[in-house]
């Protein structure tokens, strides 16, 4: 029997046209979403000819968002990864860190924060290790706004990066480890789109990206910003925020930035994926860098002084280019907040 995805494909090729990896890595090295998700499993003898293709997907889900048949392409690509097992160096390193620390990266930060309350702020592995200022800033800002925010003493990876590399049993184990810790919160807030999506899937309480929390719970009228020297910012749309959590988040980001005197949000000529998702930063670092460079060049052409990204993964990957300052949107906002 054929799956919905194999059966539902009308072969229009829209997914292949939309795929940001396919733009820079051509056939046969990378074969595109349709080959990986539909054709290879349909004609199973072709599975072997896919080579590295399934592992090169950044899981940006652009393919899926344009699919006229609305097929779950990303899920199918990830399934192909599971089929092949975890072969990459980066994947092995991630799993070894999980076994040792329960995190994808060894814990580094010590945050100043209450350890109990009602709103649990979930730092996330990348937030903790690579952009701690965003986490600390967000906690400070929310406390100043009267929120009962806390970071629990212990917490583990949400499981999202492991799901992307097809490590199903680790995902289940982490969910089990986190369940008692997260179960007591009234609401969970995070600055990471991957954590938001992954935790919300298994939670009965609201798990909000910090932009949603600011806009829907705190509400914009209570937010106060100091003005800055005029600055052009390019607002990068993180794939996992726009397409997993939801496109409303970027409307919130624009509206909040629009209310800060001195900040001008400029449009990039080409929206796209930074290359930082789906584990490719560790599996195919050069490809990830090439994709990041396209984004940074687009921002520079548009006259940006800085790129803002509401996702720690995007921040880390875009920073690797080095030609333009890249900041986590949450960190940027907390620096300008008059509520601290």
């Amino acid at each position, binding site marked *: 029997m054929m799956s919905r995805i194999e059966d539902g494909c009308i072969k229009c090729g829209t997914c292949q046209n939309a795929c940001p990896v396919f733009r820079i890595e051509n056939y046969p090295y990378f074969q595109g979403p349709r080959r990986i998700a539909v054709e290879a499993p349909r004609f199973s003898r072709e599975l072997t000819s896919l080579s590295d293709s399934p592992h090169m997907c950044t899981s940006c889900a652009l393919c899926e968002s344009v699919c006229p048949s609305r097929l779950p392409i990303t899920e199918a690509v990830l399934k192909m990864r599971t089929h092949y097992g975890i072969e990459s160096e980066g994947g092995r390193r991630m799993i070894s860190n999980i076994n040792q620390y329960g995190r994808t990266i060894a814990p580094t930060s010590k945050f100043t924060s209450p350890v109990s309350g009602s709103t649990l702020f979930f730092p996330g592995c990348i937030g903790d290790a690579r952009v701690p200022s965003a986490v600390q800033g967000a906690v400070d800002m929310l406390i100043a706004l009267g929120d009962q925010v806390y970071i629990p003493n212990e917490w583990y990876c949400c499981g999202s990066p492991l799901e992307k590399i097809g490590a199903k049993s680790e995902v289940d184990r982490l969910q089990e480890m986190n369940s008692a810790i997260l179960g007591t919160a009234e609401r969970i807030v995070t600055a990471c789109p991957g954590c938001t999506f992954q935790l919300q899937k298994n939670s009965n309480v609201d798990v909000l990206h910090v932009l949603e929390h600011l806009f829907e719970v705190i509400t914009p009228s209570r937010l106060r910003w100091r003005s800055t020297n005029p600055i052009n910012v390019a607002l990068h749309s993180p794939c996992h925020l726009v397409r997993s*959590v939801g496109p409303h*988040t970027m409307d919130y980001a624009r509206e909040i930035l629009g209310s800060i005197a001195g900040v001008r949000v400029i449009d990039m000529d080409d929206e796209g994926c930074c290359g930082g998702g789906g584990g490719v930063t560790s599996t195919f670092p050069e490809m990830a860098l090439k994709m990041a460079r396209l984004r940074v060049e687009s921002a520079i052409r548009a006259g940006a002084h800085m790129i803002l990204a509401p996702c720690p993964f995007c921040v880390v990957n875009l920073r690797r280019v080095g030609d333009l300052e890249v900041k986590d949107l949450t960190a940027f906002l907390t620096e300008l907040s008059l509520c601290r």
Partner: protein
Amino acid sequence: MSPPVVDVDIFIAGGGAAGLTLASRMASNGYRVAVASSSIAATAISTGRVLFNHDDPAVAEWASLFLTRFRSRESNYDLLERPTVAMTNIGTPLKQSLTNSSFDWTLEDRDVAVVGVIGNNDLDSDLACLELRRSLGICARPLWISPFPYPTAANNHFVGELADILKDNISENTIVLPPISSDPTYALLTKLQNLSGKRVVEAATPLSLPGLRFQLLLEDVAEEVGVRLLKDRRLISIKIHGKEANEAVLSSGMRTIIVKFSALVLATGNLASGGLAVNGRGVIDPLNIFRVSSTQASGIHSSTLRNALSSGLDTCKGRAITKQGVVIRNVIPIGSLLKGVSYPLGYGLGEVMLEAWKSAPIVEDAL
């Protein structure tokens, strides 16, 4: 936490040619209009070449809103006095009345080289030339060139290289290329024409950049006249009380949004864009509350395809009818969601836009 609420006069589900046409007309009349869309519109995968019924007075009205704004974006769409015949990427003729005539491959072009780019599936030059000779008895020369870098504003130098290849290696006057830019100003083709001294044209190509160009232009105009675009937000349910709908639920990623409105326009398209679905026994409305039926249509041999394409929502005086037969006074289906519209493939844009334009009074009546 309760979901956010969007409050408008007119809510349009579906942002293809039909939805955007009506939305723009209503917004420029001063109404508060929001348009939600999810996944790709058939409009964006069509060739973007439009055939109008020139006798319809709505053509001029449509043009006064859209064409002037296309022009102010330097996208040189022309509304032709009489339809011309364009050639498609598979060498078949296509009638059109709205397009960019300076860059179209038309039946008038003689002394033609069709240039495929290896690895680009949009133009198979051998196939196009074969079909051209077979069906129209016209000779053109098929050629292939190796791939060039993906054109962006950043790698301008590739235009010069390509122009040199065209100038030095091709004797024919007219050169057909696959679509290579999503830019509606055709700046790249203008440059290629200037640098190579050749007439460089594009075949009418579905499933590629030309449809996307047309879609983006329509979206741009809609936003300019005040339409609120809610992209990637899918209509998942409609609340109906008696003979009136007053609330819709949209999904936005993993969340939901409530929309309150006075009139609801359904412009969700036919099968290709997810407005209808096939369930094994026939075509159904995926929201599954309105009545779907099909009309007699001809011209397509496959009965499955014929059924699918000629199916659509039933209406009574422009209003939708529930499966139980209740006419809902403020739900107005338009575009290829209606039965018998946009049939057969290759035509539809013109009719869909004009009919959507003309449904404005029905919507106003429902407010």
